[in-house]
């Protein structure tokens, strides 16, 4: 198999992941784009491992490490997403601009929105 086949596949998946991160507004969908990019890197690692066949098997080992790091990243990111949803009521990354440096923009949410809402207003629990 030509070596550039898996490399081209990885490049295409990485570009699709970049597009997904840039174009999506929902934070969970942005995370899916990040997952696509990490998987593209894994394909590169495994392809070069099959090509070079070094004694340390660094390609496949690093692919495993990347998978573990991606799992940790997703766990933390979802905790942050749930936190943002609890405080803001949405996870739209376009509207989360309280940290942006343009305070005269009407699209920016007021700073009070960063205060945590009361427990009775919690959005996570199941309602009948």
């Amino acid at each position, binding site marked *: *198999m*030509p*070596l*550039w086949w*898996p490399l*081209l*596949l990885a*490049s*295409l*998946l*990485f*570009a*699709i*992941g970049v*597009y*997904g991160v*840039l*174009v*999506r*507004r*929902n934070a*969970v969908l942005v*995370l*899916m*784009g990040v*997952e*696509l990019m990490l*998987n593209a890197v*894994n*394909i590169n690692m*495994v*392809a070069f*491992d*099959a*090509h070079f*066949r070094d004694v*340390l098997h660094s*390609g*496949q*080992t690093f*692919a*495993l*490490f990347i*998978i*573990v*790091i*991606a*799992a*940790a990243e997703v*766990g*933390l990111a*979802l*905790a942050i*997403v*749930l*936190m943002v*949803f609890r405080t803001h009521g949405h996870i739209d990354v*376009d509207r989360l601009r309280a940290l942006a440096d343009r305070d005269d923009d009407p699209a920016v949410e007021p700073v009070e929105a960063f205060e945590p809402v009361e427990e009775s207003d*919690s959005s*996570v629990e199941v309602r009948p």
Partner: protein
Amino acid sequence: MSVVEVIFLLLSLVAVGSALLVVTTRNMVHAALWLVVTLGSIAGCFLVLAAEFVAWVQILIYVGAVVVLLLFALMLTKAPTGVQSDLNVRQVLPAAVVGALVAALLGTTVVAGFSGVRIDLDNAVVGSAELTGATIFQKWVLPFEVLSVLLLAALVGAIVLSRRGDR
């Protein structure tokens, strides 16, 4: 063209097509389910490229755990299950241009750089569980332990972040 190459091409087509659907579909749950297809076909590519253990780990962790976590996040943030029109930003064209530029740049680089090189898959060392385990625990022990500390830190961080109430 051998059977292995045909299988790899088909898996690549499935992976790229379903990845495009992940970033373009207007239904959030469908995006997560198309991600399953993408990750599964990437696991098939790993199998073709003689990385057996990595392929099974990919299926276990990505398809089994990460996608379930993403679906949980979609549910807990009360994502609508129907078709939505406001999933994308208004400036779709610049994002598409950037994505196409990344694809063109990386694609031409790897094709120009490795056009004559071939992988000899017939004599490839299959990365079985035995070989991968021996490699990790004989030669990559320190990165492995550092990784376990990282996982512990991520676990503690996730618990602290998602705890509610008395803080």
